[in-house]
Each structure stands twice: as C-alpha cells, then as structure tokens.
C-alpha cells in the first residue's frame, strides 16, 4: 500500500493527488475521496485558524493510516491536512483511499476521517466577520460516538 501524508499550510490539488495515487496501475477499481471544507456558518465566520502539533500530527496520522491499512485491502491512501488561516469555501483536509472494490475504499475513508477528527492534533479557532477572534471550536460528542462503531466491528 502506498501511503502519502502531508501537513501543510498551502492548498492541495485533489485531482493531482488522485492522479498520483492511481497512475500506471490497473488494479484499482474504486477511489473514494473526502474533502472537508471551511463553512462560513451562515456568514458568521471570516476564517478558521487551524493550529497543529508539528511532528505529532504526521506521526498520529501515520498511525491512523496504518490501522486502516491493516483493516482493509487498500492499494493506496493519501491524507493531507492543512493548518493556518483557511477561508470559507476553502479545503481543509483531504482523504483519498484506493482499493479493488468500493466497500473497502468507502469504509477506510470514513474510518480515517472519524479518527482524524478525534485523534489528530489539530485545533480550530473561529475568526469572525467583524474582525475579532472567536472561540476555539469545541469537540463534538458525536465525533467520539463515531469511533465506537469501528471499535465494535471488524469490517
């Protein structure tokens, strides 16, 4: 399984990453991508600021990717997570999974996002339209709940 993990301030190019993942091979039958974007929350936000823990962010995402690779027959996997100031409509995170069949690609992408949300050391802070700094985004209980289904099941 080819694994690409990048933590960066710059935007990413999903089409380019997909092409890199699938280039020169004909055993991939399914590619699932997840892109998480910055919402403006009904016009309230001017940006989200993403703080991260350099070093641990990459290490933790690598551990999550390895868990996914052990659990599903993946042929490739890409995770790119941005940090810094991100405006509404911009991409924050990309997860790409490639497999022979769709079930593995879907499950692994969903698993990766659930673990990224709760385990990867990133923190979002709101910046408001009126120019002031808003609050740190609070962790959602449903994100913890989302992990449970992976801990209960094997597939």
């Amino acid at each position, binding site marked *: 399984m080819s694994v690409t993990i990048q933590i960066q301030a710059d935007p990413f190019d999903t089409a380019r990453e997909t092409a890199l993942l699938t280039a020169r091979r004909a055993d991939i039958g399914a590619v699932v991508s997840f892109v998480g974007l910055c919402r403006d929350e009904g016009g309230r936000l001017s940006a989200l600021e993403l703080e991260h*823990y350099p070093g641990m962010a990459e290490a933790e995402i690598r551990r999550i990717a390895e868990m996914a690779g052990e659990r599903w027959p993946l042929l490739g996997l890409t995770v790119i997570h941005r940090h810094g100031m991100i405006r509404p409509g911009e991409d924050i995170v990309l997860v790409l999974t490639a497999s022979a069949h769709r079930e593995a690609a879907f499950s692994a992408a969903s698993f990766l996002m659930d673990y990224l949300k709760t385990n990867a050391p990133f923190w979002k802070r709101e910046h408001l339209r009126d120019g002031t700094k808003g609050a740190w985004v609070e*962790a959602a209980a449903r994100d913890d709940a989302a992990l449970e289904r992976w801990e209960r099941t094997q597939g």
Partner: protein
Amino acid sequence: MKLVYFAWVRERIGRTDETVELPEGIETVSDLVRWLKTRGEEYEYAFENEEIVRAAIDHVHAKPDRVIAGAREIAFFPPMTGG
C-alpha cells in the same frame, strides 16, 4: 523535561513551551498535572477541568495514568477538532 502546550491550554498558560526540572515523586501524567497546578493560577486555569485536557508523550497520546519516566517531550492540549 520539555513541556509543550496547544490551543487554549497554551493561551491560558501563556506560553508555547518550557523546560522543567521535576521534583521527586512525579511518576505519571496526572502527577505532572497536579504539580503544574501548584505553579500558578495560569496553570490552575488551564487544568481547571483536568479530565478535559489531553496529553501526549513524545508524540503519542497518553492517558493520565501513563508513566512519564524517560519522556523527552510532554504535550498538553484540548480535545482535538481537526478534520
């Protein structure tokens, strides 16, 4: 031992990192938190709900009962909100 702080834990403590000499008897992550809270109200504020603040030892998530002997860098931060 190097300590690093993130997000509102960093803001409450007022620094991104520091190097500390631990006194005798600090064996686990929760021992360390208890000791930090004696160092000033900024630490008391950061750890006012101890069970909310997460820790990592050398870039790996660590529960409060984890032994810290041998750690090079211990991080404290709020629940993660990436993705």
